[in-house]
């Protein structure tokens, strides 16, 4: 596979946007987040998605899921709520159809996001999907707020989070990243439990639980009553959680939550993130990842940053 240059001469300095997450070298730290980019096809029609660092695929379960009834979308100031509920075609369709189709248009490794309703399902799903050569990292969703008896149920106690981590690590052929929920009292405690159980890295944050009420019907806007809040409104919350977690663990953290511009990517990395995921911003502007990838080296140069490694954790590390 031919690699693109990840260093760029800008002005007097060489700008390097490359990052390493558990041995996976990314040309830049920009990864579309799970659930906002499908399996890549819709975006491949719009631009050459090979410019992306990687792609976090739509959350996948063992069996096909339709998800929750509609309405599944509500709006708020600088953000939105969704209660999609893990709609996906099931792991077999993902490995047999979606990943091969994506491979036609995307040459790099992907991050496969898996979810389950039991520890066994997490392990089975991760084992199956990790066999694909296309998959570079397994991201384990223990933080979906829109399903009952699964998802977030495993991500709100350190014990349960540790158990899922152990089970997935035992069968996965690829590095395992646990995707954490912000709907907890102490995210660093959950993060440490995952690290102790063998996680290779962490992804955070998933959406925050929220709701809206329709004043005409006097009922919740979402058929599921509540949903997950995302978008620019949650960026400062996500940033603090990435900061607190990165300080507490010695494994890489992927920063997620409300990012929509290059300056926020740099903030996340300064808070301690190794790479970032762009979520809801893709829905508002389908070309946003390309814009951020173009904007990042320009902003690095302007900010006197040669390499992302030199600023990682700068917000809390002693010089």
């Amino acid at each position, binding site marked *: 596979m031919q690699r693109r240059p990840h260093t760029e001469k800008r002005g007097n300095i060489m700008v390097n946007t490359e990052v390493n997450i558990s041995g996976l070298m990314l040309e830049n730290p920009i990864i579309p987040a799970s*659930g*906002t980019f499908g399996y890549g096809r*819709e975006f491949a029609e719009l631009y050459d998605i090979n410019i992306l660092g990687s792609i976090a695929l739509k959350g996948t379960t063992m069996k096909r899921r339709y998800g929750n009834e509609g309405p*599944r979308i509500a709006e708020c100031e600088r953000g*939105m709520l969704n209660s999609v509920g893990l*709609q996906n075609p099931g792991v077999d369709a993902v490995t047999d159809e979606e990943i091969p189709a994506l491979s036609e248009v995307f040459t790099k490794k992907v991050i496969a996001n898996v979810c389950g309703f039991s520890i066994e399902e997490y392990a089975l799903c991760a084992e199956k999907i990790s066999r694909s050569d296309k998959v570079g990292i397994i991201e384990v969703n223990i933080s979906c707020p829109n399903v009952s008896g699964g998802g977030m149920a495993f991500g709100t106690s350190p014990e349960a989070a540790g158990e899922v981590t152990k089970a997935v690590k035992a069968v996965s052929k690829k590095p395992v990243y646990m995707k954490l929920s912000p709907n907890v009292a102490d995210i660093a405690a959950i993060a440490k439990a995952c690290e102790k159980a063998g996680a290779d890295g962490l992804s955070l944050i998933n959406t925050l639980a929220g709701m809206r009420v329709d004043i005409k019907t006097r009922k919740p806007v979402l058929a599921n009553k509540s949903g997950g809040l995302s978008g620019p409104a949650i960026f400062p919350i996500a940033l603090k959680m990435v900061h607190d977690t990165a300080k507490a663990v010695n494994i890489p953290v992927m920063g997620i939550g409300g990012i929509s511009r290059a300056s926020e990517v740099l903030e996340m990395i300064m808070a301690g993130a190794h790479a970032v995921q762009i979520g809801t911003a893709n829905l508002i502007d389908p070309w946003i990842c390309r814009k951020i990838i173009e904007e990042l080296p320009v902003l690095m140069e302007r900010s006197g940053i040669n390499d992302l490694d030199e600023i990682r954790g700068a917000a809390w590390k002693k010089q």
Partner: protein
Amino acid sequence: MKQQYYEVIENRLIAKNTYEMKLMGNTGEIKRPGQFINLEVKGFFLKRPFSICYRTREYICIVYKIAGGGTEAMSSMAVGEKLSVLCPLGNGYDMEDCCSLLLRKSSSLLIAGGGTGTAPLYGLTKELLKRGIKPKVILGFGSKDEVFYEENFRDIASDVTVVTEDGSPGEKGLVTDIMSGGEYVFACGPTSMLKAVWEKSAGGQFGFESRMGCGFGACMGCSCKTTGGSKRICREGPILKREEILW
């Protein structure tokens, strides 16, 4: 699909709480009537989906009714304002499907619109007429002050019936009261109306609306169940064929 700025060149009240807006910009990629646009309203996070009523070389026409804060804000947009628009979106009405069906059997062709759902059917009727197909038109509204585009339809089609639920102009009743049954229908309107028309029809295509996150198939916010599995209203829709629909 492209994201471009369109300029408001007209925005006027045409019926109770109902506005017609003309947006100047690229219309070359629109392939079928029944496709839609996703339009940015400043101060609101999500774009708003509106079906294209009709288009010319220069502009897109949409019809919207004030239903919440976003459409309220749209109603006071001034001529000259520039809006970011994703266009075109969705599948649109498949006119070939009805042509082949009409050749096969002599089932009559009906346009059935309800409320603002009437808007995309105007552009469709124009396109059908260009192909030499003359459909019967039935438009249903709540009351007289909500009726729009009656003259526009009468100008282009010979068999147009307008019904209102309170009987204020023309015939009192529902679209389905006028249907003879067994028609091939191009329909758009509220879900209850679509379902009633679906039950009386023999075939056809039905335009749905939904709350959407993105409008282009990424978020799975507008999925619905069909006989062919789940479909996204924004991508595989908003037009579903009669045989696909599950109520």
